[in-house]
């Protein structure tokens, strides 16, 4: 009985002494910080992806509190919702940006861009890129070894087994830009997600002359310029045998997609086109042949 009592008393005293020491130390060495940093950090998604350009969500919160206005400060992972909350906490005007997404500008799947050599080495795009142009005849095309997948902290990009190309998950991608930095060939670009998630882009970055590009890949951009001619909004420029669509000017009319002879311009999330009578007839003729 005595033992139990002694134990209880001595342990309690020890506990109280430790608690007092901890409290005193915590008070004495307290770091005084603006409480708004904690409040704004609480609004942030907490992914620490670095997409904002600051070291983690805490860094971004500190930058917001220090800044006079929220211009130039944007959390791509959180988007407009999160920026509105931060603006409320800090009493500043909210910043709004069109939602963006990572876009893979290569459509050269295994089927369309045939392999001409056999690469043996670590499964790393950076290593393969430093060795040679890749195991196909297009030195600009996607290597399919997944450095972008390794870089993504949101699980938003995977390499499709069949085509060998990366596929971006629309729901998960926060346009933080990690995959863009990881790709040694600069194939991935951050573009506007577009109204109703619809976007049109040239899925190729090949600068070789048309004939060479086509020989290497069936869906390469040959720089013929037909798309630029048919665009009514001046959104397409041709440079070094490659077309580029400016997403800010593009009005999603899809005329360039129909015009492109190689099919290198892609349209995403559009409803299927209504077939014209002429097209239907052509189809029937094909079947009859």
């Amino acid at each position, binding site marked *: 009985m005595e033992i139990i009592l002694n134990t209880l008393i001595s342990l309690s005293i020890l506990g109280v002494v430790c608690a007092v020491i901890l409290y005193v130390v915590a008070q004495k060495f307290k770091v005084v910080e603006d409480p708004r940093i904690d409040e704004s950090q609480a609004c942030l998604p907490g992914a620490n992806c670095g997409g904002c350009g600051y070291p983690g969500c805490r860094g971004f919160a500190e930058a917001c509190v220090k800044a006079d206005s929220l211009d130039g400060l944007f959390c791509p992972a959180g988007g407009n919702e999160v920026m509105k909350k931060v603006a409320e906490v800090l009493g500043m005007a909210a910043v709004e940006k069109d939602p963006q997404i990572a876009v893979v500008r290569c459509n050269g799947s295994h089927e369309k861009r045939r392999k*001409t050599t056999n690469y043996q*080495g*670590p499964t*790393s795009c*950076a*290593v393969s890129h*430093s060795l*040679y*142009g890749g195991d196909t005849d297009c*030195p600009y095309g996607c290597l399919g070894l997944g450095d972008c997948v390794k870089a993504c902290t949101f699980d938003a990009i995977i390499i499709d087994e069949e085509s060998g190309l990366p596929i971006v998950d629309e729901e998960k991608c926060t346009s933080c830009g990690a995959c863009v930095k990881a790709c040694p060939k600069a194939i991935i670009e951050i573009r506007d997600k577009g109204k109703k998630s619809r976007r049109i882009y040239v899925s190729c970055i090949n600068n070789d002359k048309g004939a060479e590009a086509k020989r290497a890949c069936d869906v390469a951009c040959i720089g013929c310029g037909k798309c630029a001619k048919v665009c009514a909004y001046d959104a397409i420029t041709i440079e070094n045998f490659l077309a580029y669509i400016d997403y800010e000017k593009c009005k999603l009319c899809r005329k360039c997609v129909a015009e492109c002879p190689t099919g290198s311009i892609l349209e995403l999330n559009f409803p299927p086109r209504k077939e014209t009578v002429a097209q239907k007839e052509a189809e029937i003729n094909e079947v009859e042949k």
Partner: protein
Amino acid sequence: MLKTFPKGGVHPKENKFSAGKPIEKLELPKQVSIPVSQHLGAPAEPVVAKGDVVKAGQLIAKSTGFVSANIHSSVSGKVAKIDKVLDTTGYKQTCIVIDVEGDEWVDTIDKSVEIKNNTDISADEIRTKVSACGIVGLGGATFPTHVKLSVPAGKTCKYLIINAVECEPYLTSDHQLMMEKGEEILIGSKLIQKAIGAEKVFIGIENNKPDAISHMTELSKKFENIEVNALKVKYPQGGEKQLIKSITKREVPSGGLPIDVGCVVQNVGTAFAVYEAIIKNKPLFERVVTVTGKSVQKPSNILARIGTPIHMLIEAAGGLPEDTGKIVNGGPMMGKAVSSVTVPVTKGTSGILIFPESLADRAETFTCIRCGRCTTVCPMGLEPFQLKNMTAAKMYEELQKERALDCMECGSCVYTCPAGVPLLDYIRLGKANLNKILRAKKS
């Protein structure tokens, strides 16, 4: 006791199938593609345009700085285009493509085979001529020779070492060059010695070439201050720093150059090219290339013009074997695998190796078992397994501290690794990224 370097090294099988085969002149190709960047340093700038008629030995691209080199046409004919062509780098590079017509050489070139000498020429004149003739290191590194011949102020050069080691398996071009053009090489070496003001010339030859050792020793008696040294057969005996350590016992400091210990190293092929430049006014536009491999019908040493597509050399060696798996430009330890047989011969092409499918595959990769063999064989005293882990984790500061930049990429670590870990792939990547970071910091 044969001289050698004390640390590290491996003993790959020699496979010198083409040893003793006399140098054959290759027939002229129909078209050559001469890259404007065949050397370390800034690429040369073309001085000809489409449609121009050129002669062999004519300047077609000018050096664009101190560390750069001139490029000369290797054939006579018409410039077809200046365009991006796939070359040995694995990418398309700017090349001057010439349609060959006849074989006219520039008048100033002395085409005779008579061995001549010129002891009156001054050191400055030697340097100017070497630079004008576009001479670069023919050992594979292709460093512009005139830069090496310009000893910086405040440093003196005591020894000139001629690298006739040819430690890479399969390659025999240097060996054959010594047997056929030994005296010319010695004259070239004396000219280099004059340009750098060295006291003595050493010629390092690996012990697996006894005929070359005795031949060069015999010839060297005609000259003063030339000593032939037989060296132990060990890879990488031909590495610059290892060679200097073996012959002179001096160690080049980490991050330093051979001139810091009073030495200059030149490849034996470069010495021959210097002879041709100074004595025969001939710029560098052809070189000896070893074409060999286990299933090659006729392993040979071929004198080819720069810009010749390699399939012509392979044809001359008996054609591409049926079971070809890999074609390497250079030696098996440090050479680069090519993706097509249309790539051209460049100043750095010391050999074309053809591996059958059975030897083309890499060793299967297991996890590192921490056996430490890579550390034991590294001639620079580095820890390759550590450098690989640091590169994978992107720890560039630590890479610098561990002296990753000292790595000469000889491949001894990968050669011995029982687990087949691709150490060198990562170390190269780490070095490249580290260099990028350091350059960005400087600017």
